[in-house]
C-alpha cells in the first residue's frame, strides 16, 4: 500500500488534459521541438496522393479522347441495334472543352484563315465515331432505326429535327428539346451510308459562325444558317 502511494507521487506525471493545460497556462516551452502542423500534414497527403494518382488521371484523360459522349453512344447503339451485323470500329474521337481551349490558345500565335478560326471559336466540344458493317445489310428498313433512335434520344431529352432516308442512306439530326435562343448549339447527327455509319455530336457557341456566314453569305438561304448551326 505504501509503495503504491510513493509511486503515485514520485513516478512519471500523468499527461495533462488539454483543458487542464489551457486553464493552467501550460504549453510547450520555446526550446521544445514544435509539433507537426495539421495543415502541413494534409498538404503532404494531398501532394502524395496527386503524385500517385497522376498517372491514373493522365490515363483517364487519354482514355476520354476515345470515349464518345452519352448521346452519341445512345445514337450509335440504336442504329446498331436496328441494323444487326458485325460492326467494326474505325475511329472514335472525343475532343473536349479543355483541349479545344488549348488549341484556341495555341492558334492565337498563328495567322489562321477566318473559316477555321471561326470554327475553333465556335466549337466547345465534339466527338465522332466511324464504324463499318462487315457485310452489307440484308435489308434497308430504316424505319426501325429511326424509331429506336427516336425513343433512345427522347429519353435523353433530344428530339429529331431532320430525318432523311433514301437509296441506302439515312441521315438524322437531333437537338435537345427546349433549345434556348442564346446562341448555344448542341446537336447530334447520324449518317448511315450502306455499310458505313458515322455518329457525331458537337456543342458550342454559334455566334462566330453566324458572323462569318453573315459576311460571306449575305444572300444565302436561311436554311444553311438555321440547319448548319447545330
Amino acid at each position: 500500500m505504501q509503495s503504491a502511494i510513493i509511486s503515485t507521487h514520485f513516478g512519471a506525471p500523468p499527461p495533462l488534459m488539454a483543458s487542464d493545460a489551457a486553464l493552467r497556462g501550460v504549453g510547450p516551452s520555446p526550446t521544445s521541438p514544435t509539433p507537426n502542423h495539421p495543415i502541413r500534414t494534409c498538404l503532404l497527403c494531398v501532394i502524395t496522393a496527386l503524385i500517385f494518382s497522376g498517372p491514373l488521371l493522365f490515363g483517364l484523360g487519354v482514355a476520354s479522347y476515345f470515349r464518345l459522349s452519352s448521346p452519341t453512344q445512345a445514337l450509335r447503339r440504336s442504329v446498331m441495334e436496328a441494323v444487326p451485323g458485325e460492326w467494326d470500329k474505325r475511329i472514335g474521337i472525343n475532343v473536349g472543352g479543355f483541349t479545344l481551349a488549348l488549341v484556341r490558345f495555341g492558334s492565337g500565335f498563328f495567322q489562321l484563315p477566318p473559316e477555321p478560326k471561326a470554327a475553333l471559336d465556335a466549337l466547345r466540344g465534339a466527338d465522332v465515331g466511324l464504324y463499318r458493317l462487315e457485310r452489307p445489310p440484308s435489308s434497308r428498313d430504316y424505319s426501325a432505326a429511326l424509331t429506336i433512335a427516336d425513343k433512345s434520344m427522347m429519353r435523353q431529352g433530344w428530339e429529331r429535327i431532320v430525318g432523311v432516308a433514301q437509296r441506302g442512306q439515312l441521315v438524322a439530326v437531333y437537338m435537345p428539346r427546349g433549345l434556348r435562343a442564346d446562341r448555344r448549339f448542341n446537336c447530334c447527327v447520324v449518317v448511315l451510308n450502306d455499310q458505313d455509319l458515322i455518329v457525331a455530336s458537337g456543342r458550342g457557341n454559334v455566334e462566330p459562325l453566324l458572323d462569318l456566314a453573315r459576311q460571306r453569305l449575305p444572300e444565302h438561304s436561311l436554311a444553311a444558317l438555321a440547319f448548319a448551326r447545330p
Partner: protein
Amino acid sequence: MKRLLPWIVGTLTLCASATLVLGEELLPGQVDFGAFSPPKGDGQFVEVNVPTDLIKLASHFVEKDEPDVAKVLDGLKLVHVNVIGLDDQNRADLEKRAKKIRTDLTGGGWEQIVTVQQKGQDVSIFLKTTGQGAIQGLVAVVLDGNEHAVFANVVGDIKPEQLAMIGDKFDIDPLKKLHLHAEKSDDKSKDKADQ
C-alpha cells in the same frame, strides 16, 4: 395539412405521369399526322421538324437584314413537313391517310382554301383561323402522282402566299414546290380568264 400532403403529392405525381404518358398537348393549328415510316425500297423519306426555339433563333438572325422575313418567322411556332416516296406497298395506305386527314380537317373547322386535282396531282391546302380572323395554322396535303406524298403543317400566323417563302428560307423543297403549284394554278386561271 399534414394529412393532405400525401394526397397532394400523389395527385401531382399522377398528373405528371399522365402528362408523360399522354404526351404534350397540340398547339392550336397543329395537326398530328401520325408516324410515317420510310418506304422499304429506295423510296424517298424526308421529315423536317422545326420547333419554336429554332424558328426564334432563325428569326433573331435575320431580323437585321430581312426584317419582313423576321416578322413572318416571329409569328410561327412550328414547321413540320413529311415527304414519303410512293411505292406499291405504301400507296394505298398513304392515300387512305391523306383522305382521312382531309376529312378530319374539314370536320374540325379547317377551311380548304386550295384544291388542285390534275394529271395525277392532288393538292389540298387548309387554313385554321380563330373567330377574330387570325390564322392559327396551315396544312398542305399533296399526293404527287406516283412519286410522293407530302404532309406539311405550319403552325402560327402564316398566309398561304408566305408558305413558299418559308420553304425558300428553310430550304424545304416540298414547300417551294407548293409555291410552283400555286403559280401554275394562278397562271392557268389567268389564262382561262384571258380566253
